[in-house]
Each structure stands twice: as C-alpha cells, then as structure tokens.
C-alpha cells in the first residue's frame, strides 16, 4: 500500500513537474549551443531581458519599501482603528485574486490614452499605457501583497515587548526600528524580496495588456516568448524561456536554502 502511494506520487511529480522542465531545457539545445546562444543574443531578446531587468529592480525596490512600512502600520499602528485595520488587511490580498489580465485592464481603463487622466498626462508628455510607467504600475499591483504577507506574521509573532523597552529607554522610533525590529524581520523581508523578483521576472498577463508588446520598446522577456510562440519560432522561444525558468528555479532554491538554514539555526 505504502509503496503504491509513494510510487504514484513519484509518477505524478515526474510527469507534471520534472518532464516539462527537462523538455524545455532539451528544446533550447535542439540546435546545439549555437541555436541557444543565437536565440538569446538576438537584439530583441537582449532588449526584452533588459526591460524585464529594469522592471524587476524598480518594482522590487518600491514594493519592498512600501510593503515593509505598510506591514508595520497594519500590525503596530495605534492611529488605525482595529476595524479599519481588518478591512485594509483583507484588501491587501486582493491582487492575488485578480487575474493578471484584469489587473492590466484596470490600468488601461484608468490611465489609457482615451481616459481623462491619461489624456491629461499625455498632453504633458507622459505616456503611461503602452510605455514603461504603465508596465511598472501593472507589476507593482501584481506583486503588492508578497512582501507584506511575509513580514506581517513575523511582526505579530515577535510582539511589542522589546520595542516598548527600547522606547522606554529613550530610543527614537527610527533607532528602535533599525536596532530592534529590523533584525527580527530581516529574513522575512528577504523572502518577500525573492518572491517579488521572481514574480516580476515571470509577470505576463498584466504586462502584455499594458505594454502593447511593442518590439524594441515595451517588449519584456515573457511577452517575447509569447510572440515567438505565436510566430512559431520555437527554438528562440525556448532559449529565452530557459533563461527565465533557470532564474526562477534558482530563486526557489535560494529560498529553500535560506529557510532550511534559518529553521535549523532556530532549533539548534
């Protein structure tokens, strides 16, 4: 019985998870190292990877900063009434429930060239939709809950005693944060950052809608893969996809390593 279940689990994992990853790696090497390198060093692929990199760096910085502050407020702030806190807390998760396509649509509806706000900004020379700012907003929206959801439980768990002690001893709020709170939430922030980076690299639906997928302008790595597949350039698509897959698997492994290291440290 036991053998049967373990065997079945191996089969499910193998067919569903391992075979597809191996297949994409094999696909990228179908025409050897040259095919892979050629697919990757195409000017459009380099530009797309650069766009993805810019978005990942900017979005991670902004959402880490705001995410940590919002998590601190939602757990600690005395100026927010508990009911309001609960409401805000449930709103934080909403981007998880929104289809990425719909997230993109929201931004087009609010800031697109046909809306009042978009037209106003357009006249001032700022393009939001079909340009980098819109793609940043879309990715910010999609990755918003990640840091907050990692940091909040830790803040709740560590309690307020140490922070109150620091305050009583006359420390400024900033000093208290950096010397007392930060060291205990540091690793959860790292987890949140890793998840955010990984989601930025992989975000597709929202960015596709908002960017318009314009070659050499707003095309990101994932939307390039999409376009390559639509044009039946499967080998080229494979090489970019392999890079994305390798990056996300690398981040996943880093996360596993950090988590096991930290839990081992706590018990030992």
């Amino acid at each position: 019985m036991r053998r049967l279940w373990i065997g079945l689990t191996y089969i499910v994992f193998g067919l569903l998870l391992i075979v597809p990853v191996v297949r994409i790696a094999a696909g990228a090497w179908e025409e050897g190292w040259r095919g892979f390198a050629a697919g990757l060093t195409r000017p459009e692929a380099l530009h797309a990877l650069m766009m993805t990199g810019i978005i990942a760096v900017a979005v991670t910085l902004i959402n880490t900063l705001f995410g940590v502050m919002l998590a601190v407020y939602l757990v600690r702030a005395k100026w927010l009434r508990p009911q309001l806190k609960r409401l805000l807390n449930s709103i934080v998760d909403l981007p998880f429930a929104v289809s990425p396509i719909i997230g993109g649509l929201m931004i087009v509806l609010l800031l697109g060239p046909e809306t009042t706000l978009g037209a106003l900004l357009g006249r001032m020379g700022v393009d939001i939709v079909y340009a980098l700012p819109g793609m940043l907003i879309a990715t910010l929206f999609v990755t918003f809950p990640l840091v907050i959801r990692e940091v909040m439980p830790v803040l709740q768990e560590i309690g307020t005693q140490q922070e109150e002690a620091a305050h009583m001893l006359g420390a400024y709020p900033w000093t208290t944060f950096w010397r007392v709170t930060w060291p205990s939430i540091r690793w959860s922030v790292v987890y949140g950052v890793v998840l955010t980076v990984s989601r930025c690299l992989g975000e597709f639906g929202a960015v596709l809608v908002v960017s318009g997928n314009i070659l050499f302008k707003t095309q990101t790595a994932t939307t390039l893969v999409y376009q390559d597949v639509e044009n039946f350039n499967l080998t080229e698509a494979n090489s970019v996809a392999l890079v994305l897959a390798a990056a996300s698997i690398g981040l996943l492994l880093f996360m596993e390593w950090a988590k096991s290291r930290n839990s081992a440290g706590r018990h030992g």
Partner: protein
Amino acid sequence: MTNMLRSRWWSWGFRSAVMLYFVLLIVFPILGIYGQSLSDGWNAFVHNLTEPIAWKAVMLTVKLALIATAVNVLIGTMAAWVLIRYRFPGRSFLNSLVDLPFALPTAVVGLMILLLLGPRSWVGQGAEQLGFTILFHEPAIVVAMVFVTFPFVIRAIQPLLEELDPSEEEASYTLGASKAKTFFRVILPSMVPGIVSGAMLVFSRSLAEFGAVVLVAGNIPAKTLVASVYIFGEIESDNPAGAAAVSVLLLTFSFVILWIVNYMQTRRTNG
C-alpha cells in the same frame, strides 16, 4: 522640541504616503473597473455579459476550472499525505519541487505544455492515433490549469496533517478500527478544511489563469476561448466595456472565494 516636531511631521508624512500608495495602487483600480462596467447602466452590463461568445467563454472556463479542481484535489491530497506521512528517499526534494509551478513564469509553462503535448510530440501523436487531439483543445487547457494550481491543495493540507494528534489515530486502532476506517473516520475529516480551502484557491486561480492557457488553447470563440483570453481579445479589439463586464463577473467570483478562505483560516486559528 524642534526635533520632536520634526519627527512627528516625518511620521505623519510617511503614514500618508504609504496609505496613499495603497489606495491609489490597489483600491482605486478595482473601484475603477466596477465603475466602468456599470457606467452605461445595468442593462448594458447584462447585455455585454449575455453576448453569446462572452457567456460561452465564461461557462467553458467554469467547467474546465471545476475539472482542474477535481484533479488537483485528488492528486494534491495524495501527495500531501505521502509527503507528510512517509519517509522515503527523495522526499525533501519532492517537497521543494511542489512550489515550482508558482515560481515558473506562466508563459514558460504554456510553452512547456505546447512542446510536450504538441502534434509532433509522442503524447500528441499517441492521442491522435486514439482519435482525439490535446493541444488547442480542452484537455490542454485543463493540463495548464492543473499545472499552475498544483501547489495550493498540497500546501493547504500539509499543516493540518502535521498538527494532527497521533493519539486520536492510535485510539481508533486500539478500539479495533481497520486502517481504511481510521483513514475515513479520523484522518480525512481533519484534512477536509485544507482540502476545501485549497480547492477554492485552485478554482479561483484556474478561472483567472491567462499566460499558460493562451498559448495552448486554440482560442476559437465558443469552443476553446476561455474568459481571460476573451477579455484580452476584447481589449485588443478596443471594446473595453465588454472586457470590463466579464472581468467584473470573474473578479466578484474570486473576491468571494478569497474572503471565504480567509474567513475559514481565521476561524481555524482563533478556534
């Protein structure tokens, strides 16, 4: 005194900036889409929704999402059970693999399925000989949905199984119950909350999935066009009202599911 004043101004500034960011980035767009879809009145909203292609896309998505949910409940329950209860070589490796579908970009997932099940692959050829095609048809969409939602059920059940008090199980055995009876009367009931909330997350995510599905579904209206791809098509063909109507329906679905899951979780941790 000036120092204190300055620090108060600073903290007030931070608070307003963070709250403003929150409201502008999250609340505003969601209210905006509800407003937009109802801006031409209720009748226009219903009209956009009952358009045959839109309605068929929604029904197809619901049907396929239900199938994907059933598949994932079965294999997820099994995998969670095996990963928690049995010790075997490769267990921790499989356990880390569970999160892979969340980490992989959905467009990459779509490409993987395309390569694996396509007409040139042996799976595709085998299916062809049996008389049906997978790629660009409903089975491929279900596979894509199952893949991207794979971790939900497992991750929802695992903590429950870890918490389960072994003495309850032992009591059941001592009282003479068989293995199967113990499983169905003692262990399964304690897994049910996890199965239910995992299944709801699978369903909600399957309704919303776009990246993996758009590459492997044929996107033929009324046949293999799912709701998210329909929305994308309407945006591309400059019909935001039609896109917004279907979006609002999907969003309301997902929000209700999310709130139920959150409610169940808080009740469990508090109770």
